[in-house]
């Protein structure tokens, strides 16, 4: 794991698998997560306003983005012997049926502490129009 950690260069870019959002994937996520908020299911409800915001139709769960970013990170880390330790995200725009999402990350920095070896990554999710859906930061540990 020391060799793997040492070999990681700040600036390294990681790309995750694209994910095509449909009403079916949203419904499947409802059943798997038990999150049946009408934001994700009820078009009539979503014609209404949410304060100054009108979504105009159902939107994907933000936590689907969180799960897709997690998958990108663990797919990259497991073969290197790294452990996914933290993910922080903020949602910038909703994702909708018909969108294709692409997760990506960049190694921002490395840090050696008294007991551990860490990397910090910047993460983001964009749709097919290159609009940012989510941004955030992740942290992985390469145990000593």
């Amino acid at each position, binding site marked *: 794991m020391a060799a793997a950690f040492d070999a990681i260069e700040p600036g390294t870019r990681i790309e995750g698998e694209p994910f095509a959002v449909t009403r079916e994937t949203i419904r499947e996520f409802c*059943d798997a*997560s038990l999150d049946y908020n009408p934001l994700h299911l009820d078009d009539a409800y979503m014609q209404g306003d949410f304060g100054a915001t009108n979504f105009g139709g159902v939107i994907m769960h933000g936590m689907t983005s969180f*799960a897709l970013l997690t*998958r990108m990170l*663990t797919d990259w880390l*497991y073969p290197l012997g790294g452990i996914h330790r933290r993910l922080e*995200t903020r949602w910038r725009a909703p994702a909708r049926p018909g969108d294709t999402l692409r997760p990506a990350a960049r190694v921002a920095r490395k840090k050696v502490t008294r007991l551990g070896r860490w990397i910090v990554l910047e993460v983001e999710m964009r749709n097919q129009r290159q609009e940012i859906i989510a941004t955030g930061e992740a942290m992985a540990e390469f145990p000593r």
Partner: protein
Amino acid sequence: MARAQFETDFWKDAQLRKSWDELVPGEPRRTLPYLLTREAVLKYCRAVGDLHPLYVDEDYARRSPWGGPIAPPSIHILLMFACTPADDWMRSPGTINAGQSWSYNVPARPGDTITLQARCLDKFIRKERLFAVHDNVFFNQHGRVICSGRGQTIRPL
């Protein structure tokens, strides 16, 4: 523990859930223990397209450093709803997720009985919106922390 009936109609008894005004920062939320089954893990993995063999292939997982199947770190997405009762305010229709941060300690595993300690930690008003900050810690049956997280939601008016 693995409740056969999960109320999927979040409008049902919605008026019984706490509004933003009624949230008391610091007050614990009522939670429920939950038996995480292999079926629930697989269903979650399929829904997010994450079929890593550590999650779905028992033989592979047994030979790995993890010593057996684990759940993806993000399984707390399911656990949040699985470990809370139907009158929990996170189910209020119109709850909008603004951001989350989660830290991971030991993985959840199929067969774990998982408990949750949770509370609204803070609430505030910003740009005409009502926010709640919630913190959550999931434990396994051995009392070990699986993960801890903090989220911000915009509460329905």
